């Protein structure tokens, strides 16, 4: 009866965290799970209608497909969940990721049957509410960013980047003068060059200036008529507003190039400034950052793209059209780049973002950006004597970046400090990004955190800096209260075990 696979150990719990094997190891032959409905019709058996060689053998165990009871399923995942840290668990200042509160009401709304139960090929007359929502969201995003038109199709930020670059490529191709290069600052997120490459461009890197921002002259140096676009991020990944943006976009436009802005950092700008007024031609939004939709442990997100008129013809199809009071899909878009995926995008994520915007209103969005900026500056101010600021001390936008320079003399790295922070009940910031800052510690508090929480974070960071001086082994051995101790990532790559095998 006893399965050897069950580890019998006294240490069943760690806190209330249970040990839990792989689901495949909990399997028991013949054990029923949630059994589906019976056919209930006089239909054939598979063997009667499909040639045998197309079928799995009748008793095929599917390489050890699990067989567990409904309760075992629920317990398995409940226990797994308890090894995780989410926004609802505690402070999550993961820079660039905008880990703000995910409103519960949005989760309820996204689960309304009138939204979840829609097939993408239903006649348009049956999805007027959904189309209205999408049309409305496009309009709101246009207004927030100052762009002329928006597509909701891309599935995430990087997908939106790719979409934008494909449009840019098409724009030049259609003009009869295809361009080969894209300029990207060294501070850019990795998806930027990857997307550029995927869209067929050669990446030209431009260095950000000593102040942590791009200069028009640096851009001028690499700008030429081969350059299709400059991909910038504003505020950039150092949390700094690209002060010279107007001059920079002028340089690029003067050469007939276009400006793509990575909109992942829009949380700093809502109601404060519009990218469209800075010369940006195309931008992607991360609804799963700025607009409060949850990250889901790695998606799903949604990466709408906003464009100026000049790029509008190239937007993916279908577009959403309003004629009188009736909404419909418009497929007659001959200059469109086509589609980035099947159907229309991550609709249920749009529902959440739409709900968020409706709940906040214009004034609320501005207040959110303001509070996000205030929180980041507060952290910067209180930690700048303890940690080395990545760049000169100037007001930052929604996030701030430090390095581990001051701690390195004690043999302590950013990684150690990040792991130690876990022992304080706080999720580590983004680390080692942007790449231009050695040992970067990138802190984005977001507006939904109270000053009390932020004070606790500051206190923790200072304490850790002190520990780095006095007892660095505490940091080296961190984290110490988690389900597992520091994980051997090198071994994972060196001796790959990427699946369970029976």
């Amino acid at each position, binding site marked *: 009866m006893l399965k050897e696979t069950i580890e019998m150990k006294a240490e069943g719990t760690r806190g209330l965290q249970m040990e839990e094997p792989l689901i495949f190891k909990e399997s028991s032959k013949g054990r029923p799970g949630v059994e589906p409905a019976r056919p209930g019709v006089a239909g054939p058996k598979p063997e009667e209608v499909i040639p045998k060689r197309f079928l799995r053998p009748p008793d095929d165990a599917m390489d050890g497909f699990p067989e567990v009871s409904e309760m075992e399923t629920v317990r398995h995942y409940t226990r797994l969940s308890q090894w995780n840290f989410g926004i609802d668990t505690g402070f999550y200042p993961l820079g660039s990721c905008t880990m703000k509160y995910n409103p519960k009401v949005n989760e309820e709304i996204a689960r309304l049957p009138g939204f979840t139960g829609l097939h993408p090929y239903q006649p348009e007359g049956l999805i007027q509410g959904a189309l209205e929502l999408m049309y409305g969201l496009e309009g709101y995003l246009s207004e927030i960013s100052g762009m002329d038109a928006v597509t909701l199709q891309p599935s995430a930020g990087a997908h939106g980047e790719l979409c934008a670059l494909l449009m840019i490529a098409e724009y030049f191709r259609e003009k009869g003068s295809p361009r080969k290069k894209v300029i990207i600052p060294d501070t850019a997120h990795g998806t930027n060059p990857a997307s550029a490459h995927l869209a067929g461009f050669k990446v030209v890197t431009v260095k950000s200036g000593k102040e942590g921002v791009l200069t028009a002259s640096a851009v001028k140096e690499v700008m030429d008529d081969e350059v299709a676009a400059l991909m910038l991020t504003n505020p950039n990944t150092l949390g700094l507003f690209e002060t010279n943006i107007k001059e920079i976009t002028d340089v690029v436009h003067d050469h007939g190039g276009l400006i793509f802005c990575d909109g992942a950092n829009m949380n700093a700008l809502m109601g404060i400034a519009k990218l469209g007024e800075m010369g940006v031609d195309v931008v992607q939004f991360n609804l799963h950052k700025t607009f409060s939709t949850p990250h889901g442990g790695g998606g799903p997100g949604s990466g709408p793209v906003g464009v100026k008129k000049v790029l509008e013809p190239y937007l993916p199809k279908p577009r959403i059209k309003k004629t009188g009071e009736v909404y419909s899909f418009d497929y007659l878009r001959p200059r469109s780049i086509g589609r980035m995926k099947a159907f229309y995008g991550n609709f249920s994520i749009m529902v959440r973002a739409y709900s968020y915007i409706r709940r906040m209103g214009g004034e609320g969005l501005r207040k959110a950006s303001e509070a996000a900026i205030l929180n980041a500056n507060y952290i910067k101010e209180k930690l700048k004597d303890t940690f080395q600021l990545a760049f000169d001390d100037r007001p930052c936008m929604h996030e701030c970046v430090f390095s581990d320079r001051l701690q390195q003399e004690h043999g302590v790295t950013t990684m150690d400090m990040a792991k130690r922070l876990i022992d304080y009940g706080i999720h580590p910031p983004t680390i080692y990004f942007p790449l231009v800052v050695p040992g970067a510690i990138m802190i984005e508090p977001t507006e939904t955190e109270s000053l009390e929480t932020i004070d606790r974070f500051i206190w923790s960071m200072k304490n850790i800096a002190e520990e780095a001086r006095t007892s660095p082994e505490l940091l080296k051995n961190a984290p110490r209260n988690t389900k597992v101790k520091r994980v051997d990532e090198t071994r994972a790559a060196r001796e790959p075990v*990427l699946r369970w095998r029976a």
Partner: protein
Amino acid sequence: MPYVPHTDRDIEEALKVVGAESIEELLSTVPAALRLKKGLDLPRGLSEQGLKKALKAMSSRNSTVEDLSSFLGAGSYNHYIPSTVESVISRSEFYTAYTPYQPEVSQGTLQAIFEYQTLVCQLTGMDVSNASLYDGASAVAEAVLMARRITRRDGVLLSSALHPEYRETVGTYLKGARDSVSEVMYCTEAGVTLPGAVEAACTDDTACLVVQHPNFFGCIEDVEELSGVLKKKGVILIVAVTEPVSLALLNPPGRLGADIVVGENQSFGNPLNLGGPYLGFMATREEYLRQMPGRIVGQTVDREGRRAYCLTFATREQHIRRERATSNICTNQGLCALAAAVHLVSLGLRGIKKLARTNLSRAYYLRKKLLSIEGVAQGFASPVFNEFTIRIDGDPERVLSRLLEKKIIGGLALKRFYPELKNHILVTATEMNLPEDIDRFAAELRETF
């Protein structure tokens, strides 16, 4: 303000700390000319109660597949989702977490993905799987790029029985190399991709063939034979699956010679949601692992030797390799993959096989009923799983709208995507189409003639 905890006093104190008089002062790095002078032109904020009311009203301006009797499929399937799924994915430790960059506080997500990867391998018969891609269509596009990297060839063959929107997506991804993509026409009789036609289409520069299985018409392809043809020519066989429930019944592509199996896992655990979020899956052979895009979770140990999981092979990815990455993908469809895994685990071996049989049984029962109607003929001759085509006398649009008056969505008129199939309708039946709904559909369709 909703969700912003700052009291006036908080703001004052924080400003004092940062040494600014006002928040405006903190914005000094934003050139004055760029700062907005007036507020955003957006509707006024709503109370939570008001919001819920407004959005409920909006949702009720849609009709759902529950309000109607729907026989739509075509890449998006209405399946019963066990209640276990919602109860797991609504646990905030899962859904409010980021991508598991810090393994020590993400073992839940990581083990769940590791298990998901295993489940995908078990379904497809392949060696390795990634953690998910955006959707089935973009997964096919990624697979095509991957095949081009593996073979260092350019040519891409798409079966024309591959989902039209998938083909379109491949076309978009390969916009800059549009001449390298060509299609292999399906057999107008059998509705499948013929090995002979594939062989004829292959050139020395052909990197891959993409064939959908069961294909867009619901027909089961002869993957083994296609593989035989391609193996000889060093062409990668990409099998796309939009209805993975079929994999519980059908010999898995991995056992039939497929090199990459991609597709859409929405059928497991993810509601229709008007087409998204869904989740692309990708599985391949061990040897191609390093060319596979997307996140991959691996098993390892912690410092004390405990079993542990983490993201691995990051050197393929954008945040390390930047423009030399295998893909630009970052945020993928994590929670959708979790939902799929919970659904699969809930079903278990017996359950998933029963589910597949129920689907097949219902579809064949429906097909037989429909074909018995005068004016309705079989679309294609091949065996199918849970969807099939019929050919009708008359205009499908007219017939479908007559059915709609009876609250039946009778399927998808294929001329939308295949001008030559102007009388064809693609019809799908799953476990959600109850026997009485099927009978009513057949009766009402008969009425329309």
